[in-house]
C-alpha cells in the first residue's frame, strides 16, 4: 500500500497507475482465461451461467488487485483443480488408479489434506505464542503442555472407551494446544507462526481445489446429478474452512500480526474436527444427487455469500476470546505470557470490528438472495421458516452490535463477550436449526 515518498510531492497517483506489472499480467490472464472458456464451452452454457462466469472473473480480477497475495493462491488452486479434472478424464474409476487423484487432488483426498494441514497450521500458530524469550523460563509453556496434554488424552480415552461417545473427535483440539506449547519454546522467533501461515495458505488451496474437483466428480457420478458442491452439510463445512482461513489470512496481511492465528485457526480446527467425524464416522462425503428443491442457480450465490458472513462472525468471536484473555492478562499479570504475546487490544478490537462488518454486509446480501430464491422455490420471499427466522435473529444481533459501537462508542470487554455470544447464535442458526427445529431447510440435517 505504502508508496516510498522520500521526495515530497503533492502528487498522488491514481488507482490504475498504482498497479504493478504483476497486477496487469494477472488481469490479462483472467481476461484471456475467461474468453477462452466462453469460446470453447460458451455454446453449452446458458445466459445465467455465462453471466456468473463473467461476474466471477471480474470479482477475481479485482480481488487480485486489491489483495496481492490472492493472485498466487488463485493460480495454485487453478493448477491443482486442472490437474484433478484432467486426471479424471471421463471416468470416476481413475480415482483409484491415478496417482494424483488417489493421493492429492481428488475431492476427497484434497479435503483430507486440508484437514491435516489445518491441524498442523493451528499447532504452528499456537507454538509461536509459546516461543522462547531470552531471560525468561519456559515453565508456563511446559505447564500448559502438561495440563492440556493430560486433558486431551483423558478426553481421547473417555471417547474411545465409550464413556462419552464422540469426545475422541473433539479431544484432538486440546492436544493441538499441548503440542503447540511443547514445541513452541524450541524457537525464539516467530518462525513457527510463519510456518503456520504457509500451512494455512496450503490448506485453503487444497480445500478450494478439492471442492472444485468435486464439482466435476458430481457430473462423473451421473451427468444428471451434477451440482455445485456447496449443497450439503459436508461440503459447506469445507467451504467454511476455506473462507474463514482466507479471510483470516487477509487480516493477518493487513495488520502484519501473526498473533491472532492461534485463536482464529482454533475455530477452523473445530470445523475440521466435525468434518473428520462426519467423514470417517458418518461417511457423509459420499456424493448423492440433490433433491429437486436445491437444484437452482441461486445455490451458487446464496451459500458462498452466507459463508463469508459465518466466517467473519467466527473470526470476530475468536478475536473476542483473545481480547478477553489479553485484557485479563493485563489486569492480573501485566508481565505474563497473555499480556506480552497476544496482539494489542487495539488491533484485536479493530479486526474484530472489521470482520463483523464484512460478515454483516455479506450476511445481509445472503439473506436477501435467500429471500429471492425462496420466492422462486417456495412461493414466498419470507415464510418464517425456522432457518429464515434464525437468520433474522443473527442479523438483528449484529445490527445491535454495530449500532452500539457506532453511536454509543462501545468498545472492549463487553463487545468481545457479545461477539462470542454472536457466534453461539450464528452456530445455532447454521447447524442447530437443522438438528433441532427442522423446517424447509431440513435437507441440511445431520
Amino acid at each position, binding site marked *: *500500500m*505504502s*508508496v*516510498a*515518498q*522520500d*521526495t*515530497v510531492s*503533492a*502528487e*498522488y497517483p491514481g488507482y490504475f497507475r498504482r498497479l504493478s506489472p504483476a497486477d496487469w499480467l494477472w488481469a490479462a490472464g483472467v481476461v484471456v482465461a475467461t474468453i477462452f472458456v466462453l469460446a470453447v464451452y460458451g455454446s453449452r452454457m446458458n445466459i445465467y451461467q455465462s453471466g456468473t462466469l463473467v461476474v466471477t472473473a471480474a470479482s477475481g480480477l479485482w480481488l487480485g488487485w486489491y489483495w496481492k497475495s490472492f493472485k498466487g493462491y488463485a493460480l495454485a488452486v487453478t493448477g491443482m483443480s486442472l490437474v484433478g479434472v484432467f486426471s479424471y478424464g471421463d471416468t470416476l474409476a481413475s480415482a483409484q488408479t491415478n496417482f494424483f487423484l488417489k493421493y492429492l487432488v481428488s475431492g476427497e483426498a484434497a479435503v483430507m489434506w486440508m484437514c491435516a494441514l489445518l491441524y498442523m497450521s493451528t499447532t504452528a500458530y499456537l507454538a509461536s505464542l509459546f516461543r522462547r524469550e531470552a531471560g525468561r523460563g519456559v515453565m508456563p509453556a511446559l505447564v500448559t503442555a502438561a495440563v492440556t496434554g493430560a486433558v486431551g488424552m483423558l478426553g481421547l480415552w473417555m471417547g474411545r472407551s465409550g464413556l462419552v461417545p464422540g469426545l475422541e473427535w473433539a479431544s484432538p483440539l486440546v492436544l493441538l494446544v499441548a503440542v503447540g506449547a511443547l514445541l513452541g519454546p524450541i524457537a525464539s522467533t516467530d518462525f513457527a507462526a510463519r510456518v503456520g501461515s504457509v500451512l494455512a495458505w496450503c490448506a485453503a488451496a487444497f480445500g478450494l481445489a478439492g471442492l472444485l474437483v468435486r464439482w466435476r466428480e458430481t457430473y462423473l457420478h*451421473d451427468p*444428471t*446429478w451434477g451440482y455445485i458442491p456447496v449443497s450439503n452439510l459436508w461440503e459447506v463445512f469445507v467451504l467454511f474452512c476455506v473462507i474463514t482461513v482466507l479471510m483470516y489470512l487477509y487480516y493477518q496481511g493487513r*495488520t*502484519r*500480526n501473526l498473533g491472532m492465528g492461534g485463536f482464529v485457526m482454533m475455530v477452523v480446527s473445530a470445523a475440521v474436527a466435525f468434518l473428520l467425524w462426519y467423514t470417517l464416522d458418518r461417511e457423509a462425503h459420499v456424493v*448423492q*444427487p440433490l*433433491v*429437486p*428443491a436445491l*437444484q*437452482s442457480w441461486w445455490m451458487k450465490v446464496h451459500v458462498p455469500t452466507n459463508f463469508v458472513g459465518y466466517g467473519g462472525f467466527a473470526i470476530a468471536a475468536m478475536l473476542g476470546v483473545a481480547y478477553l484473555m489479553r485484557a485479563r492478562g493485563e489486569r492480573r499479570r501485566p508481565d505474563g505470557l497473555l499480556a506480552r504475546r497476544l*496482539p*494489542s487490544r487495539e*488491533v484485536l478490537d*479493530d479486526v474484530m470490528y*472489521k470482520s463483523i*462488518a*464484512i460478515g*454483516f*454486509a455479506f450476511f*445481509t446480501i445472503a439473506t*436477501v438472495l435467500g429471500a*429471492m430464491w425462496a*420466492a*422462486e*422455490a*417456495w*412461493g*414466498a*420471499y*419470507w415464510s*418464517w421458516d425456522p432457518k429464515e*427466522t*434464525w437468520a*433474522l*435473529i443473527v442479523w*438483528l*444481533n449484529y*445490527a*445491535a452490535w454495530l*449500532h*452500539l459501537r457506532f*453511536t*454509543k462508542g462501545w468498545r472492549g470487554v463487553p463487545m468481545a463477550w457479545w461477539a462470542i455470544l454472536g457466534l453461539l447464535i450464528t452456530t445455532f442458526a447454521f447447524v442447530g*436449526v437443522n438438528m433441532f*427445529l427442522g*423446517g424447509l431447510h431440513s435437507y441440511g440435517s445431520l
Partner: protein
Amino acid sequence: MSSTSTDPTPPGRRSTFAILMAFLGSMGLAITLLVALAVASVVGTVLQQNQSYEAYLLDYGPFWHELFRTLGIYHVYSAGWYLLILVFLVISTSVCVYRSTPAMIRDMRAFRLGVKDKSLRSFQHNVQRDAHPEAPAALMSRAEAVFRARGYRVRQADHGDHRVLSAMRGSAGRLGYFFTHVAIVVICIGGLVDGRLPLMLAEFTGRLEIETRQVPVSEIPEQSRVSISNPSFRGSVEIPEGQRVDVAFVTMRDGYVVQELPFHIEVKAFRVERHATGQERAFETDLVIHDALLDEPLAHTISVNHPLVHRGYTIYQASFRDGGSRLSLDMFPLGRGADRPMPFDARVFGTYSQTGEDGSRLRVEFTDFSDTNPTLIEEDGVRERMDMGPSFEFVVRDSSGAGWFHRNFQQPIERDGRRYLLSGVRQNPAEPFSFLYIPLDPQGDGVDRFMRFLAKLTDPAVVAEVVDEATRTAAGQFEGVDEGLRAQVAETMRGLLETFAAGGYEEVIAQVQEQAPEGQWDRMADIFLRILNSGLDAIYLRVLAEEGIEVVSEEDERFLEDALRAINALPFYGSPFFLRLNDFEHIQASGLMITRAPGQAVVYAGSVMLILGIFLLLYVSHRRCWLWVQPRPEGAGLVLAGTSNRNTMDFNREFDEISRAVLGESRPAPADQDARA
C-alpha cells in the same frame, strides 16, 4: 436508529411532542426493539407454528393450550403483539431518520471553515507547528494540491488573522445511514402489503368467517370466500390430473378461507422424474390456464424452482399426492369361499361397505396408492436400491371405528427362490407394518393354490369328508382297529383342523393345555400335532389332486410349509379378506401454491437499498481534514487535524502521509509499520 447529532433543543421545558420524539428516536428504544424482536422470533421457531389445535391440545394439555392460544403463540408472526413490535420498530426508525437526516446533510455539505484552532488541537489526529518556515500562501496551495490529488474536496477561507483550509472525502458514506434506515422502513411496508392485514381486518369486522369443516368447495358459504379483488394472498390447492379449479385455499388459524381466482387452472399431468438410483430428480406439472382474457388456453409446465407467473399470480409446484387412482382388485375372503374371489373396483379416497361373514358391517377406506416403492435393501453389507413396485393402502374399520391399516404390494417378492405376495398390517399408523407372506403358486402368478387350500380347510363339509377318508385309509393299514377308535380319531382330527383354521398353532396348544394334565402336555401336543398334520396333509393332497398332481415334489412340500405359516398368522391379520391388485390407473393430484405479492417489488427495492446503504456505511469513511494557518514572523503557525468516522487505523496511515506531504517533510525510515501492531 438514533440521532447522531446532538439534540438542538436547549435543556429546560420541552414540549410533549419533543419528548415523545426523543423517546421514539432514542437509541435505547431502538436496541430494545431489536432485541425484543429477536427474542420474540425465537419463540416461533421453538414452538412449531400453524399446527392443528387438536395437536396442540394433545401436546400441551388444556391449561397451556388455552394460555398459548390466547397469547397467539401458535401464530407468533401474525400475533398482534408481534406486529406491534414491528410497527414500533418502523416508527422508531422513521423518527430517527426524520430527526437525523438534516444534521447528516449538513455534515455532508458543511466544510466548517469557521473551525477554531483550539478545537483542532484536541483532535486525535493532529500535527502542530509553532514556527513552520514556509509562508502561509505556499503552504495552503500545496496543501490544496495534496488533498485534491487524493480525491478530497477542498474549501479555503481567509479570516484575516488566520486562514483555514477544509478538505473532505467520502461524504457519501453518510448516505449509508439514510439508505439503511429508510430501507428497513421500506421493507417493513412491503412486507405489510403482502401480509394478511386485509384478511385479518375482514375477519375482525365480521365480513369473513373461517371455515373449519372439510366440505366440497361448492358448499362453502359466501362468508368464507375472498373475492379476486384481494391484492395479496398465499394459498394452496390440490388438483387431480384432468381436473380444473378456480380457487385456492388460504389457511387461517385452525381453518381456511377460499380465495377465488380470475381464471381456471387445469392439471393435465403430474410427473415424478427419477434418477437411475430411484431418488426423485424433479416434480413437474403440465398446466393449462383457462382465462377469458387469453385468446387460447395457456399451456405450461412448472416444476420446483420454476414457477409460472400469470397476471401477477405466481403458481408454484409445492407438493403432490394421489388424486383418486382407480384400482382393479380381487377380494379373497380369508376363510370359506377363499377360492371364489370377487372382482372389486375401488378408487383411492373412496369408502366401501362390506358385510362380514358373521353379518357385521365393515368399512373399507382406500387411503393411498403409489406406483413405485424405491427401497434401500442391505444384503451382506452391500446397500442396493430396488423398486418394490406399486402398492396401495387401505383401512378396514369395524362398527366401533377401530381400524386395521393395510398396505398391499402388487408384485411378489422373492425369498430363497420362493415368491410371496406381501400384505402389511398395523393397528396404529405410527407403528411399522407387520407383513403377511402369501405364497404364490409354483407355476404362474396366482394365489389359487393357497386360496383353495384355505377354502377347503375352512369348509366343514370338505373337512369332514377328508377326515373320514384319511382315517379310513389309515385304519385299513392296521389290523384290529375298530370303528369306534377310528371315529374318535376322526373327531379329534376334525376338531383340531377347525381350531387351527380359526386360531393357528397357538390355539391348538392352548386346547392341549386345557384338556390334558400339565405333566402330559408335551406328549399330548406331539400326538395332537401329528393328527393335525396328517389332516392338513390330506387336505393339501386333495388340492394337489385337483391340479392333477400325483407325486408331491419338494417344491410342493415347501409350499405347504409357507401356506401353513401364513394361515398360522391369519388371526393377527385382522381383516377377513385379502385384496389383490390386478390393475390400476394412476391418477395423481398436483399440490400447487398460488400467491399474489404486490409488495415483493417494494421489498426487493428496499433490500437493494439496504445492501447499498450497508456498504456505504461500513466502507466509505467520511474523512475530513482542516489546516489552520496563522502568519507568524518566523513563517507560520499551523495546526493540521483530521478525523474519520470509520476505519481509523487506515486513516492513521493516510493522515501520516498527508501531513508529511502537506508540511513538505521527508518520510522517516518506514519502521513504524510494526509499531502499530
